[in-house]
């Protein structure tokens, strides 16, 4: 805890609650209920919990992706680098460039590999071919994909395998050089080898890119994360350093979950 105090807090949730709007229906309780947590720069932060526990919604609130697909009522605050991202003068488009998001399913845009990666930078105003080329190479290397695709960058990205597509998604997200990276069960659709390559990539760049990782796989959390949080039924049950979390959980429910008694 003393060490934590010294590190910079890149993301902070303060009393965060969220409930979906269901027009014409009685609201059936919040999806997130009074969440408080801090994420330090340069670490990997894992969120585990059974499905429907609110962990994905939490992740989607951090880069304001939630509001694109659903409407809901939010209370409390999310601070990214000290600023409230839901403040009225906060620019969500800029936020989404600084906070990357990697989806659970491998999703390639229907264009070439190179165009997939340069999509974000081009929207951000980078036009120079050399710069874009450099970004392509750098991010593909960072996501462990370069050797497999360097000779076919103009091929349609949909022709890649699932594991390759997922690494391409990672590269595409990294192309904007986000300071915070949100990963929503990034390996749930992947085989063990692809998973290992993604995990390697995350660890190797964590000094530069802080990660918040939502995962169903408790083992993955224990392998990768510096700190781990456990969500259950919209509530944050427990958060702590990963080692402590998995060896001596304070909460009975956490213990039940990580030892596989439910979920």
């Amino acid at each position, binding site marked *: 805890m003393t060490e934590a105090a010294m590190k910079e807090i890149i993301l902070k949730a303060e009393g965060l609650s969220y409930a979906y709007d269901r027009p014409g229906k009685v609201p059936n309780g919040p999806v997130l209920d009074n969440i408080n947590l801090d994420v330090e720069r340069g670490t990997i932060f894992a969120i585990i919990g059974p499905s429907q526990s609110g962990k994905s919604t939490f992740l989607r609130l951090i880069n304001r992706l939630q509001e694109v697909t659903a409407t809901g009522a939010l209370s409390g605050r999310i601070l990214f680098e000290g600023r409230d991202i839901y403040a009225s*003068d906060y*620019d*969500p488009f800029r936020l989404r460039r600084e906070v990357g998001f990697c989806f659970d399913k491998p999703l390639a845009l229907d264009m070439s590999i190179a165009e997939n990666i340069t999509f974000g*930078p081009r929207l951000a105003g980078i*036009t120079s071919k050399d710069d874009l080329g*450099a970004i392509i190479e*750098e*991010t593909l290397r960072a996501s462990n994909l370069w050797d497999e695709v360097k000779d076919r960058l103009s091929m349609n990205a949909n022709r890649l395998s699932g594991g390759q597509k997922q690494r391409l998604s990672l590269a595409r997200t990294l192309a904007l050089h986000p300071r915070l990276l949100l990963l929503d069960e990034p390996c749930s659709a992947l085989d063990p080898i692809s998973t290992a390559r993604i995990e390697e990539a995350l660890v190797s760049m964590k000094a530069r890119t802080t990660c918040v990782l939502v995962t169903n796989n408790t083992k993955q959390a224990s392998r990768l994360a510096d700190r781990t949080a456990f969500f259950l039924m919209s509530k944050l049950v427990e958060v702590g350093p990963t080692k402590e979390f998995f060896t001596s959980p304070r909460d009975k429910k956490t213990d039940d979950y990580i030892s596989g008694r439910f979920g």
Partner: protein
Amino acid sequence: MSRDDRKPDAATVLETHPPMPGAPATAKDLSRREKIIQQILSLTAFSAVFILGLIIIFVFKAGIPLIYKVGLREFLIGTAWSPTQGEFGILAMIVGTLEVTFGALLIGVPLSLLTAIHLSEFATQSTKSVMKPLIELLAAIPSVVFGFLGVVILVPFIRETFGGTGFSVLSAATVLGVMILPTIISISFDSLQAVPQAYREGALALGATPWQMVVRVIVPAARSGIITAIVLGMGRAMGETMAVIMVAGNAVVIPTSPLHPCRTLTSNIALEMAYASGDHQKALFATGVVLFVMIFLLNVLATALMKRK
């Protein structure tokens, strides 16, 4: 492409590049631009409704005064049509339209439904992949060409087989029956395909033959889509002009036999529009109003049926 000689960091690249010159930089600018785009799109979105409104206004404005002048009753049930003498009764045309339309359904519906059932339930993948595009090609053939083929093939055939001139309700109904095939086939095919596979399995697992499965489970489940298909096909037959003009004979009489010639509402307009003026022209617009109302009611029916699905 090897870039091993220089590898600039993406971070530095991004930081040294300001946003595109001229591109809106702040959230405020962006959201203002988004709002303008949305407003333009919402304007285009109403184009269909706007055009529908224009059609109603202009066609009705040109046609309604004459209906007032003649009297709605007189206009609809009058049997005499000599617009130059001031006689405006379109009953013959209404009856002609209905006869031709129902005749077309009589011919077209069984053919299309059986074809749709075959394609959806029994045909092999290769038959399907040949037949589907073929049927869509049938939809692409212009109606004048259908009319022309009716004149050169069907009319002589009917004249020689059944007597009369050959220009008749029967010819018109046959040509239209073929023309509405693609409409009814493709829509009912789609609704048959939308029936969950589980229903098929459920029926077969109880020992139903494929035909029993189709008749007792699949067709009832796809009922609303099939009815919609028939209603839309009916609309197409009712509104068809050129093919009908060429084969129906166009005499203004109430046809009492399938071999009699007839004139439909659509052909009434198309035949006389070229030289009509004054009240005569207005009467043609009034004919259009009657046709419009009939089609509109059909469409409301079709929409209501579709919603029930």
